[in-house]
């Protein structure tokens, strides 16, 4: 017989945790060690020194806008930088709090599991956020990959072929199950879906 005590309201408790407890909770929720989280906090702070407090005792609710985050050297050259930041933000507009910032780099780190990366890769490539990778999503992905150097016919062909190859349930678009089935067979996925910070 086991008895559990479940707290009724949780959200306001988060504000009373001390700094180390904040980082400790982040350590449990991400694939980073405490040192790495401290280093990430330094990076987050230098993006906007006047906005980001150094002291996280009261778990401040500050968010950095998309424009600041995509200027980081690790993300600057990535053609999907906007989608990456948007996928990890809660409001979908790309404004990241420090927790979400850490979460983003945790998923993109070396030690994150394949399943988790597949979930977020699907989110990133889903431009119209409808939980399916339809033709328009693929076309946008392809144009960003090749800097729009392919002719429209070639784009059409590649998208069609890609969907044909990966689509298993025949609805002419890729659901997450199709995407995951295809991506687990790709040997390079883990090594390419990886940002070192």
């Amino acid at each position, binding site marked *: 017989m086991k008895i559990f005590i479940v707290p009724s309201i949780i959200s306001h408790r988060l504000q009373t945790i001390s700094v180390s407890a904040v980082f400790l909770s982040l350590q449990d929720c991400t694939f980073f060690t405490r040192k790495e989280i401290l280093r990430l906090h330094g990076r987050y702070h230098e993006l906007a020194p006047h906005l980001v407090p150094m002291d996280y005792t009261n778990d401040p609710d500050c968010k950095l806008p998309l424009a600041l985050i995509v200027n980081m050297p690790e993300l600057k050259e990535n053609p999907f930088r906007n989608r990456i930041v948007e996928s990890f933000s809660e*409001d979908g507009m790309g404004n990241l709090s420090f927790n979400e910032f850490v979460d983003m780099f945790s998923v993109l780190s070396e030690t994150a599991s394949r399943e988790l990366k597949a979930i977020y890769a699907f989110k990133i490539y889903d431009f119209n*956020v409808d939980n399916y990778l339809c033709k328009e999503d693929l076309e946008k*992905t*392809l144009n960003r990959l090749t800097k729009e150097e392919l002719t429209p016919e070639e784009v059409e062909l590649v998208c069609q072929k890609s969907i044909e190859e990966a689509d298993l349930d025949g609805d002419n678009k890729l659901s997450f199950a199709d995407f995951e089935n295809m*991506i687990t067979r790709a040997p390079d996925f*883990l090594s390419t879906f*990886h940002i070192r910070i």
Partner: protein
Amino acid sequence: MDSEIQRQGSRNGYHGDQQSLRSRQVSSRVSNQNYPQFNWSSTPAEDDVEGSSEMPRDLRSSPLHMALKRAVRQVQQMQVPVVSSRESWKRNKAKSLRKLKDNTREFLYLFALWSKSLQKIGGNFGGGVQSFFLFLRFLVVLNFVSFLLIAGFVLIPSIVFRSVGTGLVNSTGPEECMEYDPNPQGLVLFYNYFLDLLSGTGFMEYSYMFYGYYNNTMVDDTNFSYNIPLAYLFTAVFYFAFCLIFIIARMGTAARVAVATGGSAVGNYSMIVFTSWDYGCLGDRATKLKQKNIHYRLQVRGDLSYLAGWRTLRKKWWRFLIRVTCFQMNLSPTSFLFLCQVDLEEEMIKKRAASLTTNQKVVLYALRVFMCLVAFGLIIGAFYGIFLATEFSQEKSGKEGILGLIFEYLPSIVITAGNFLVPLMCDQIALIERYAPSTTVIVALLRAVFLRLVSLGVLLFTLWRQITCDGNTESAECKLCEYNYNFYPCWETRVGQEMYKLTLFDLLINIAVLVLVEFPRRMVVDNWSNKLAQWVGRQEFVVSSNVLGLVYGQTVVWTGALFCPLLPLINTVKFIILFYCKRITLFNNCRPALKTFRSTTSTFFFLVVLLFGWSLATVVMVYSLAEIRPSMGCGPFRFFPNMWSIVPRSFSSLSETTEEFLFFIGSQAFSIPLFVLFCVVMCYFIALASVYGKSVALLRAQLKLEGRDKQFLVKQIEKLSRQLQIPQHTAGAGQ
């Protein structure tokens, strides 16, 4: 992992709790049915079954937003389950173990060498080049740890106990065999020191560097005894075993990734679209090249699928072939193919091969056999050259001055020249042979590996011939001491010196090529806008030949470690210098690869080739330990019939029970059942692996079938709904 995460189980419950947690508007994408969701209400029920170590792992891998994850963690931490003391002990143990693992990881991170450099290399040049540098770093660590091993068990005790200690065996042996005087007589010119440093003679010969300096002594105190020859032997054997374990452990991690992804079709469209962009790509230039690369790969696929007339196809194919040949001037076929990953090219060649007439096929096969013989002949020619050079060098040893130095280095020069010229010629031969690209690569690689490793074997064989008078111990020179004591008063030191010279020469050649070939080439290409210069172009970093160079260097060190205990230390320093040299040339002289190199399978392949080198060195070591008589004038094994015989001799000093136990382990009564047990265990694992592979294939087929079932059902529904609508239509129209 799935216990706390259920698919669509209680979506409604999840919704409700979500609203209470976040008062913001939740977008529809969070509540989708496409991926596993976190089951909020199942948390209390499941927690008692899992240990607390499972909780953080599940939380890390769950695809929730951070605020939710932290809230869940809060809840889980605040739950105070009333459990038995045994369970709580287990949980505490698991928690402390996890903390220990995290702390160890943080600690090891401090020692990660060159991580920033590697990141920069990977971002600018791709995974293939980065895997070379990772391999180099692995070898540096391996050599350094081996040096610590040797220093701890052989070097430091030798230094400490040099003056103390009693001889193990009384000196018995002919006077001529025991003559060994390596110290130079008379006046020594200053520049001789420099020559001695380069060739391992003179002041370096009689030092801790080589086998000859170590003593045949044993320290025997009341509580403590240390047998130096025994330590020397066991350290050498353990060094080999340790390297093997290290390499296999690393192969295991590399193989796991390769096996998990399974044999899949290379380069189909969806994979190119979704996995070709390297998120770690840094820098403007690398990004542009990456985009060109993806464009190129898609175009090559696109060309053939277009089928816009055979003429256009053929024109594009010829353009492609010309580009291929041009690249081959800069790249060896090895890197070329790894960079291309085009299976369509294979299809083209297969189509063309299938369309040949019987006559043409016969001609092609005869040509291939002939070319194979030619390549083999070239390699045998190189071996013969090495054999002659070694014999000549050994005859002329002892000559003074620069000429003497050149004679000393003659085998190294011939080996290096052979390793450079023969692969070049084999590449041209491969063009005539016209194999499929993947076969060309494999054949070229096999030839290169064979050349490098067996040329070292030829050198060692020649030395053996000279030391043991062709294996004939009854011949005039070898009769007295069972080895050629006139030329080789201390043959182990001489073998060690050869290995030392090979290592040093390898490093000098690398630096010389860097300074005299690569930098001038870059300056010529950059500053001279000639057509020829542009056609030659900046060089590309050829991963495969560099890796073979590393494997060769490491094999030399392994072979020489028994005779030159400080060689791993020298090799560590050499590889560190090589790392910086290669990095400098990479960033200054090389252009980034236009096409990428698959890095997952390449690491595994590098380690397999390294194992080949290891096995060659093991054969040499075992033969030297068991067969050849150690020198009587020097070294820790003088007066023993062979090096291994010290082991049975020291056993006799052990206690009765230990002796019996060890004899039992070595006897057939123990080893044969052990061997049978190993076979059984291996059969079990092979059977398990094949069963898993079969079930994976079955599940994949099932997945495909379910998709088709769904399609069929959807069509049925459409048909039925149409049938139901038509009668309504007629009924409506009739009225």
